[in-house]
């Protein structure tokens, strides 16, 4: 019954994907920005965490506590400058600018860190696991990542639904001009949303760095950005809960695919994505909401 274990592994992998997709979902939901540099930003966070550890000699796992707030601030600044300027030009421009950013980031990383693979060292936590029965093995790190993903996504959903700032974000996402007429500076609100998105990217990136080894082009040729998009689309737009489900669905399908053949892991996920696009473009949650 190893397929049960495959599904369990897939669910946990899906947690990581959901964490990746969270920021993307937010950026797109609020600003209609398609961030093609998303994967690369996560990798920057991973490299950043490695750098923090090298500088401060703090344990790898704690680097997250620094990386996330730093990235959040960076996100706000990037939104207020680069992304806002692109948004003023149009959709095409944001697409091109984020693509350009992706290339610049990857090459800059390669320039300063070399193309060698790295990992964020967290000691035994990376490989320790416990067993359920004889078939199911659960890694502590994987479990922590899954719990973090659920916590972040549900927490964010709660924040958006019930807090004053969250309400403003939703209002600006609906109609930014009407929000202006209510007194809201939408550029600032966009900045807050971007800060949150970048924060989650940092979390995902450092988690990824602990989970596996990474190299400068992991973001694009490592397909991270594609996985993030696939999770969002499969789960359905406009719902963070959907993003969680989408990530898990992707993880499970990839895991099962991986059992069929080692190269089939990624393809299985891509095919799921294409099928969803063709047959059910509104995604899992959109399907239920369809009325």
């Amino acid at each position, binding site marked *: 019954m190893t397929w049960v274990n495959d599904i369990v592994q897939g669910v946990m992998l899906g947690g990581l994907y959901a964490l990746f997709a969270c920021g993307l979902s937010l950026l797109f939901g609020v600003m209609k920005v398609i961030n093609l540099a998303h994967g690369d930003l996560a990798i920057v966070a991973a490299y950043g965490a490695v750098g923090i550890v090298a500088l401060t000699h703090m344990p790898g796992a704690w680097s997250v506590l620094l990386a996330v707030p730093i990235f959040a601030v960076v996100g706000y600044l990037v939104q207020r400058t680069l992304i806002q300027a692109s948004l003023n030009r*149009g959709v095409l*421009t944001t697409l*091109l*600018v984020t693509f350009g950013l992706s*290339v610049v980031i990857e090459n800059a990383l390669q*320039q300063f860190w070399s193309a060698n693979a790295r990992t964020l060292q967290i000691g035994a936590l990376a490989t320790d696991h416990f067993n359920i029965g004889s078939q199911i093995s659960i890694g502590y790190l994987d479990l922590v990542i899954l719990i973090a993903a659920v916590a972040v996504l549900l927490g964010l959903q709660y924040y958006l639904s019930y807090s004053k700032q969250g309400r403003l974000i939703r209002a600006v996402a609906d109609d930014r001009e009407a929000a202006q007429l209510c007194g809201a500076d939408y550029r600032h609100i966009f900045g807050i949303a971007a800060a949150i998105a970048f924060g989650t990217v940092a979390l995902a990136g450092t988690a990824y760095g602990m989970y596996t080894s990474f190299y400068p082009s992991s973001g694009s040729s490592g397909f991270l950005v594609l996985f993030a998009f696939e999770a969002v689309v499969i789960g359905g737009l406009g719902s963070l809960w959907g993003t969680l489900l989408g990530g898990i669905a992707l993880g499970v399908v990839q895991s099962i695919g991986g059992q069929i053949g080692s190269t089939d892991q990624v393809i299985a996920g891509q*095919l799921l994505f*294409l099928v969803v696009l*063709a047959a059910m*473009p509104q995604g899992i949650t959109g399907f239920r909401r369809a009325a």
Partner: protein
Amino acid sequence: MTGATAVKTREADVPAVRVTRSRRSVLWASVVAVIVIAVLAYAPYVVYASTTSILVNFFILLILASMWNLLAGYAGLVSVGQQAFFGLGSYFVLIFALRGVNPFFGMPIAAVACGLAGLVTWWLVSRLRSGYFAIATWVIASVCYLIIIRYPSLGGGTGMLTPNMPNFSARYLDALVYWVTLGVAVIALGGIYLLLRSRLGLVLTAVRDDETGARSVGARVTRARLLVFVIAAVGCGAAGALEVLAQPYVQPAPAFAVQWTAEMIFAVLIGGIGTIEGPIIGTIVFFALQQWLSAHGTWYFIILGLVAIGIAIWAPRGIWGVVSDRLKLFPVGYWLWPRGGGSGSALSVLRWPGRSRASGG
């Protein structure tokens, strides 16, 4: 208390105009173009193979850039997955070569095969809006790559050498590759020029400026886009096939690398999107930068990327866009001349979207 004031509605001024398709500068440009092509054709007799090799790469990128420009600048389709057709073009040549077909003859067949692949891809992605469209094309490119590497008969993940290349001397082979590449580039650019002059070109420009408006006057928008997508697939496939002729060792990772798309996009952005001259200028700048920074590997892409970002935000019409107010080489627009006036002032009515106001000459 104020009484009513009488107001006369202004009558719109409707000038009587004469419509032409080109200006005198175009004639000079055509002459120059023929001369340039003739000079380029003569090149293998006078320069080293290393130079023609660089020129081959230049032409390949020129074809790619022109195709991407056609897609994004005229049909409004932003694809970040054109490397799919580039890689397929390469691999089709390999597949045909393994069955005994001379790669030089395999090239046009491969290009057509990529056109069919384009048709299939369009069926999958045509309903998607901009961001989704872009991501979907990228996913499809990655799927092509992932499928190909499963076949050891095609070299698997490490690649293989294309067999059945014609048995000529190295010098003659290089020259042959060069002429074929030059020929395809000329055909590609010439074809695009004729396409945009045609009715299809008018439809595309109308769609580019205002899609709803274009549909409402009956323009067959989807049909036009489909055609452009397939043409771009053929073009990118041809470029990939040419790459095999230049570099017979075909590897999957470089063939399907998203780098190709990056180069296409940057060249077009810098040169000027939505114009025919733009990709030419952009490719030239690109190669100039490459030669200048060739020792510095990754810096080259960093600088290029930053320049492209800067241009996208602050000078979205690119180099040619800025220059073209003065000069028009490929006449696909219409010039309006007031009747009875000599040179008068002409209104150029072809502009990149969003800036479609007419400009007085």
